[in-house]
Structures are given as structure tokens and as C-alpha cells.
């Protein structure tokens, strides 16, 4: 079976453009159809994927030969499930959005579609410059969605979000160009192809600052402490659908960049900053957990818990051990899969409390909404890494990887696992149990949200039962990604 990644990539955008020329009410259905089609295509991809092979379904064409930029797409174990996550996450979010009244619906759904194309592009790109094109492009639809359809001081929030993120990603662009230029051998042609860059090399000193600038971009995107300044305002002002995608999917692009670009191409540079990045990761785990614990707004609890979770993922990656990296890759998928339903559930809860998302005004919903409570409970358990969930497997792998060489950090990070349990139970209790708040009118989850959330929960459960489906497919690529950096570490240790 031939699978064309270009179709996967540009289908959403095409439906978004198509929607712009359809009558007002039709745009949403066009885009929804597009996301479903991408999901179906991705399922075919998952079935067809060869776990033993390298980069597959490669598309490789010239784009801008003068700058050495190629239109290069491909799938391997690293991005297979990231693409799947994107495809899975967009369907329920578009579905929920489609049944809500929007002003200017064409524009909203165009942005939603453009966002999916941009995210898919960033995951699929096998050329550094192409990755950056999509990485920066992602921001624009989110800028419009938050600024146009958000609440509160949304313009300020969205501007802050864009500038914060761009400061990182434009510096990364400069670093990437430097990498391309400096790695060009004398008389050779400049190239940004990742496979080509891996063959070439730049000096260790250069690698160090380039890695630092890449890390800046990825840490802002993730976000990690102390580069999370945009988080509270943005999360508070965003439409719930947007924020589900932002927290669930976009945050993964950054950490994915470490595995795809930084570690394989600049192993010495990565090794150099290993300690620093691990410290940042551990700080993020603790800081995120503590803040999540002290928030009153349910959204922000989830937002800060994401910081902690992203900390776990980065910890796993920079442990530079096979197990840790595999755990990180698995956890990237798991976290995305729990955050999207969590935010959608927050939306459902808020709708039953006259829009309030404050824990002190919520409570007592479970009695009249057992299905909602059950779904929430499963997702909450998955988030706090209950044994039997995929997150448990992911976090254990991350911690094992860390224990091998960085025992102390591993132990500190373990404290984060405990904190997660505390704040998730607090949120669940605060919304579902406790005495009901004054404005709470509990009712069972409606069919629309059930249709959006239940399949996600099913996937979470399935991954908990059969994690090997993922681990088996990602193993090879993940090991290859950290191999060199790991090797450099070994050399340093023996010296």
C-alpha cells in the first residue's frame, strides 16, 4: 500500500480552504470531515508501519535549492505516534467546536485546519528548515483562535503567547541556519536535510550554543520552568478547544525536536548541557506540581500539571539511557491523550457551573452525572499514573532510565509522582464530590461530549492494557536517536 504523507499533511488545510468557499454553516463540516479523513489515513499508517524499518513513506523533493531546503517528509518510530496523537486529538476538538455557535465560523475552522496541517508538518518534516517553517507557522492559527474567540483580556494574552514563543523559535531559526552553514564542508552545497546534517559535523563549541538556542525554543514551547511565563494568561483566555490542542499536542513538538534534531545531530553539545537540562526538568516537575496543587482554577491545575509532565518527559530524554528515552516517547503520547479529554471535561464542568472554573465554586456533580464522573475518574487515574495505565509504564521507564546514572535526580523526580496524585485527587474531589457550589446545576454529560471524550478514554485504557503496541514500534528509532549522545557520555565517563 502506498501512503502519501503529503496527503495527510495538506488534507486539513485543503478542507479549511474549501470551507472558506462554502456557505457559512458548511465550513465546520468540511473541516471535521478532513480531520476524520486524516485519522483514518493515520490508522492505515499505524497498521502498515514496519516496526523494524527506518524512515518510511519518504517524500523527498526540492523546494528551495538555493537555500538547501528540501521538501522532505517521512515517518519512523519517533513521529509515528506523534502524528497519530495529532490526528486523534483534532477529531474530538473539531467535533466539539462544530456544535458550538461561533461568530465568523469560516475563519475559526480555517484556523483550526491550518493548525493541524502545521503541527503535522512539524512532526513529519525530515528537513530542519521545513521543521522550522511549520514550527513557526503553528503559532499563527493559535494566535487568531485565542485572540478572536477567547475570553477576558485575550488580545494581550495571545500577543504575549506569540512573542514569548517566537522569541524562542526565531532564535532557533538563527541557530539552525548557523548549523546548516557551519556544517557545510568546503566547496559543498548547504543542506538542511536531517539525514545529511547527521553525516556532517560542527565543532563542539559551536554545538554548545546551537543546542542552547534550540533548547530555549523547545522549553518555551513545552513549557518548562522558568520559561512558562506565557502559560497562565494564555490558558485562562483561550477557548477550551484551542487550549486542549495547545496543551495536548503543541507542547509535544518541542520535546520531539530534541529527539529528532538536537540529540542525533549535536550529540556532544547535548551531552554538554545534560546536567543543566535535567535540573530544569526536575525543577519543572516540582514547580509545576506545587503550583498545580495551589491553583483554584481547574484549567490552570491542568496547565501546571502539564509543566510537571513535560518535565518528566525531558528528564527521560536527557537521562540519555534507552529506557528513559523510550519512557519519554511513550509518555509524550500518553500525556497528550489525557490532557485533551481533561480540558474537554473542564469545558463540560464549566458549562454546568455557569461558566465558573473555580474549584471553590464547583462540586457535587458526580451524583447526577455518573458517566461524566467515571470518565473523569479514568482520565484522572491515568494522569496520576495509576498502575495499569500507560502513564504508569511511561513514568516507570523514565524513572528507571534516570536511576541508572542520575540517581539523585530520579529520587527527587519521584516526589513529583506523589504530588500528581494529590492534586489530581483534589481536582476530582473538588468538582465531582464535595458539597455542590451555589451555581452548580449538575446534569449528565451530553451526547456530543460523550462522543468526543469516550473514544479518547477508550484509547487511554487500551494503551494501559497493551503498551507494547507503542513501545515495540518506537523502540528502534528512540534508541538510535539517543545512541550517539549516550556514547559521548560513556567516553566522558571513562576518560
Amino acid at each position, binding site marked *: 500500500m502506498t501512503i502519501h504523507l503529503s496527503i495527510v499533511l495538506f488534507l486539513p488545510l485543503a478542507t479549511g480552504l474549501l470551507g472558506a468557499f462554502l456557505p457559512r454553516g458548511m465550513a465546520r463540516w468540511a473541516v471535521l470531515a478532513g480531520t476524520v479523513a486524516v485519522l483514518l489515513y493515520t490508522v492505515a499508517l499505524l497498521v502498515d508501519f514496519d516496526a523494524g524499518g527506518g524512515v518510511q513513506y519518504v517524500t523527498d523533493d526540492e523546494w*528551495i535549492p538555493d537555500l538547501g531546503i528540501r521538501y522532505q517528509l517521512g515517518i519512523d518510530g519517533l513521529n509515528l505516534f506523534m502524528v497519530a496523537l495529532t490526528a486523534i486529538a483534532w477529531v474530538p476538538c473539531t467535533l466539539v467546536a462544530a456544535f458550538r455557535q461561533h461568530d465568523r465560523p469560516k*475563519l475559526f475552522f480555517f484556523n483550526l485546519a491550518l493548525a493541524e496541517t502545521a503541527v503535522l508538518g512539524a512532526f513529519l518534516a525530515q528537513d530542519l528548515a521545513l521543521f522550522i*517553517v511549520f514550527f513557526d507557522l503553528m503559532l*499563527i492559527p493559535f494566535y487568531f483562535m485565542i485572540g478572536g474567540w477567547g475570553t477576558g483580556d485575550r*488580545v494581550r494574552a495571545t*500577543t504575549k503567547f*506569540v512573542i514569548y514563543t517566537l522569541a524562542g523559535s*526565531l532564535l532557533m531559526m*538563527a541557530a539552525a541556519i548557523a548549523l546548516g552553514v557551519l556544517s557545510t564542508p568546503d566547496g559543498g552545497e548547504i543542506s538542511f536535510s536531517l539525514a545529511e546534517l547527521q553525516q556532517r559535523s560542527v565543532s563542539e563549541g559551536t554545538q554548545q550554543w546551537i543546542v542552547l538556542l534550540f533548547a530555549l525554543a523547545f522549553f518555551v514551547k513545552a513549557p518548562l520552568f522558568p520559561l512558562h511565563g506565557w502559560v497562565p494568561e494564555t490558558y485562562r483566555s483561550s477557548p477550551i478547544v484551542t487550549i486542549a490542542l495547545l496543551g495536548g499536542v503543541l507542547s509535544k513538538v518541542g520535546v520531539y525536536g530534541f529527539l529528532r534534531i538536537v540529540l542525533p545531530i549535536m550529540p556532544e553539545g547535548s551531552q554538554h548541557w545534560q546536567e543543566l537540562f535535567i535540573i530544569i526538568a526536575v525543577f519543572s516537575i516540582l514547580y509545576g506540581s506545587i503550583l498545580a496543587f495551589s491553583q483554584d482554577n481547574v484549567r490552570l491545575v491542568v496547565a501546571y500539571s502539564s509543566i510537571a509532565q513535560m518535565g518528566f518527559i525531558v528528564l527521560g530524554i536527557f537521562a540519555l539511557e534507552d529506557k528513559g528515552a523510550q519512557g519519554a516517547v511513550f509518555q509524550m503520547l500518553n500525556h497528550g491523550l489525557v490532557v485533551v479529554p481533561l480540558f474537554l471535561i473542564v469545558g463540560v464542568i464549566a458549562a454546568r457551573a455557569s461558566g465558573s472554573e473555580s474549584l471553590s465554586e464547583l462540586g457535587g456533580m458526580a451524583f447526577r452525572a455518573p458517566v461524566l464522573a467515571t470518565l473523569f475518574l479514568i482520565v484522572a487515574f491515568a494522569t496520576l499514573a495509576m498502575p495499569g495505565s500507560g502513564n504508569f509504564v511511561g513514568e516507570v521507564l523514565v524513572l528507571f532510565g534516570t536511576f541508572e546514572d542520575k540517581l539523585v535526580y530520579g529520587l527527587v523526580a519521584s516526589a513529583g509522582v506523589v504530588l500528581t496524585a494529590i492534586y489530581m485527587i483534589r481536582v476530582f474531589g473538588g468538582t465531582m464530590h464535595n458539597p455542590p457550589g451555589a451555581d452548580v446545576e449538575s446534569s449528565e454529560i451530553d451526547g456530543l461530549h460523550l462522543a468526543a471524550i469516550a473514544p479518547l478514554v477508550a484509547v487511554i485504557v487500551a494503551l494501559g492494557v497493551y503498551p507494547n503496541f507503542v513501545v515495540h514500534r518506537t523502540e528502534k528509532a528512540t534508541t538510535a536517536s539517543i545512541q550517539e549522545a549516550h556514547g559521548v557520555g560513556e567516553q566522558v565517563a571513562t576518560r
Partner: protein
Amino acid sequence: MTLPLAEIQAPDIDYKALSPLMATIGGSIVVLMVGLLRGRLVQTVLVPALTALSLLTAIGLTIWIWEPGVQQPIIEGSLTMDALALGVAVLVYVAGLVCVALSLRAVAAREAGHGEYHSMLLGSITGMVVLAASSDLITLFVGIELLSIPLYVLCASELHRRTSLEAGLKYLVIGSVGSATLLYGLALLYGATGAMQFDAIASAISSDEVSLTDPLLLTGIGLIATGLAFKASVAPFHQWTPDVYQGAPTPITTFMAVATKAAAFGVALRLFDGALGLSQLEWGPALAALAAATIVIGNVGALTQRSLKRLLAWSSVAQAGYLMAGVVVGSTLGLQATVFYLAVYLVMNVAAFAVVIARERVSERGDDLSSLENLGQTQPWLAWPMTIAMLSLAGVPATAGFIGKFYLIDAAVAGDYAWLGIVIVVGAVVSFAYYLRVVAVMWMGGYEVELPTIPPRQVKPVSGWSPEADLSAQPEVAAIAIAFAAATILFGVWPDPLFDAARDIGTALSGLR
């Protein structure tokens, strides 16, 4: 047959290579004459049509004589019609065509007289092409004066508006200072090298005749750089830019912003990178510092503006800084990147200015930021071009501005100016704050701009105050906005044609790194 007169030989003139210049000079004279005829039809239709015809002819002739590679100077070494000159010329002609179209309903052309207005426009265009093609110090100066003097007048062509006159006067005074500085620099350069023609200067510098640390030479280069910096609005010689851009009739502002810059950078590339062999001199870092300062000053200056024209003026200062980076590195890559960016800069700025003009004519807020309020809902056909232009100026992927910046940073890093690449990036980050504010005003309604209010202005509506009527009353403005916004996206996704031209232009100067 030998007559005594044969001692004096008239220079051999290559009329083929000169033909684009003759098209615009001839056009300028014809338009001036035709403008003397009375009649509404002659004034408002025939004159602009003849101007456009002259420019189209010039574009056609330019394409006809287009030839990559190093070209021999014509007319005893005073002009070099190579790909660099012709590339800049095409940009200038396109800017001229845009200006003609945007002036169709402008007050300025009516008040100054259509014939004079268009004739001066063509004169200025000729000056720009002469400047970009000059390979001799004298031609350079002639070009810069031929460019400037009509522009001084054009800036003041809205006779009954005080700010227009003020802009004209301001530009005249400051421009004259710039020209004088430049002239002094040219004289010193001649004194140091003993040569007028660029190739003679180049060989004098590369041989041991002239010491590279000769104070005369260095002062001369410094003064020339200052003079050109005035024209290209490079900091710290940019102060006139916001005032003049705001005061001048907007079609003229559009033309000035894109065409003057193209011509000034064209000659800067030829003089600094070609003749003076910048890479060999110690001047690179000094100019790089100037570029960095320009980027910072331009972007910071734009942050607090609420007049769109002033905002675009400050943004053009910042863009001049980006362009400088391409000159500073003194490499073929830098040359190509600069020319590429000039083209991109033209496309995106024209789209933005066209929208400003369209709004300015109908909104009582003039060119204030708030004149764009909720444009996304009322007039998406104007809001989209403006959005695309702003995003492209900021450098968002899938627009031409992104590739332009990418190319410039590429050139900077390859030329050992990685830090300048970082400065460009930092400038771009700052610029998002003001470009996105324009976008927010259009699409994210109810957004208050926190600056003092301005008194509403009395405007004569072009039409009947409804968005649809406004649009259909000046279709050419909307068409230009849409066409250039479309080009911005097109070149962002498929930049090959621009790269092909840039590659040709890259071969025009020899001796680059």
C-alpha cells in the same frame, strides 16, 4: 579622412543598453507636454496611461537587455547596465506603476497638476535607475540628485495641506545635507584614489598605490556611507523618515519607501561591495554596528506608533537595517540576499500601503490605527491583504518575508557575522509586537489602543460610506492590495522566480567573496 576635430572623440554610446533610461526620460517629457492640454479626460486618463505605458516599455526593454554576468560599462565607464542595475530598475518601475495606479484618485495629482506630477515621478524613477547603474562618482551624484529633487517636490504636492508642505521642506533640507555629505565624500575618495570610475578605484585600492588606512580614503568612505544612509534611512540618519512618510501624499510615500530604498541599496552594493572591496577593509564591523543600531532603533521606534504611516516608516527603518546586513558581509550570497529582500520588501509594503490608502480616503480617522477597526468583518478584502503584509513584514513562514529573512541570516552567518543574524532575529521578535497589534485591531474587535485620542478629520468620502461602496469606488487600490498580498504568499511558497533573478544578479559584481 583625418580632420583636426578627430582629436576629440565623442564617447561610444550603446543605445541598446541605454534604452530603458530613454523610455522613462522620453516618457517624462511627453507626459509633461500632454499635461499642458486641457480636458478632464486628458488629465485623469491620458496622462496616467502614458506614464504607465512608458514604465511598461521600460520594463520590456529591461527584460530585453537582461544579461547575467559582469558587464562592461557604457558611455566611457559612467554607467553599467548589468543585472544588478536592471534588477533594481525593475523594482523601481514596478513601484512607479503602483504609484501611478494609487494616484488615480489622489488629491496630490489633482492639486499639483497631473502632467507635472507624473513627469516628476518619471524623472525620479530615471534618477533611481541612473543611481543603481552608476559606475562613476559623477554619475552617482547625478543619479542621486535626479532622484531626490523631484521627490522633494512630490512630497509637497498636496498644496493645500500643511503637513504635506512641511514634509517636502523637511525632506529638502535633510536630503540636501545628505547630498552635500555624499558629495564631499566623493571628492575625498577621488582625492585618495585619483580615480572617478569604480573599476579604477577598485584597482587603485587593491594595488599598493593607496594605503588602506589612508585617512583621506577612510573619511571619504565614511562620508559616502553617511550620505547614502540618509537616503536609505539607516540609523542614526533616519529621523526624517517618520515625519516625511506621514506628511507626504500616501502614494508618494509608497513609492519612496520601496523605490528609494532599492536604488540606494543598489548603489551601496555596487560601491561598497564592488568597488571598495568592503571585505578587505576595516569598515565591515563599523557598518555592521550601524546595521544593528538601525534594526534596534527602527523596531523600538515603531512600538509606540498609532499612525499607520509612521508605523510603516519606522518599520522601513528596521528593514533597512536587515538589508544592511546583506551589504556588510560583502559576499555574493549577501548581494543576492539583499536584492531578494528588496523585491520581497516591495511586494509586502505595497500591499500594506494600498490598504492604508484605501482606508485613509474614507475613514474619518485618517491613517490612524483605529481606522482599521473591525476591518476583518466589514471589509475582509482589505483586511486580508493587510494581515498578510503584516505577517510577512514580521517574517512568518509561508510568506515571502520569511524566506527573505532566512536568506539574509544565511548570508550573515556565512559571512562570519553570526551575531548580526541574531540581531535580525531579536529585531523580528520585537517587531511582532507592533505588527500583531495591527492584526489584532482588524480581527479582534473591541480592542482599545491605549494612546491619546485624535480629533476626527473632515474627509470627503470617495463614496457613500458603506464598506461595499468604498471598495467599489476605488477598485484599483483594493486590486493592488490583493494582488501584492497574493504575490507575498506566492513567493513565500514558491520563490523560484526571485531566486533565478537573484542568481543572475549575483554574477554582476566580480571580486566578491
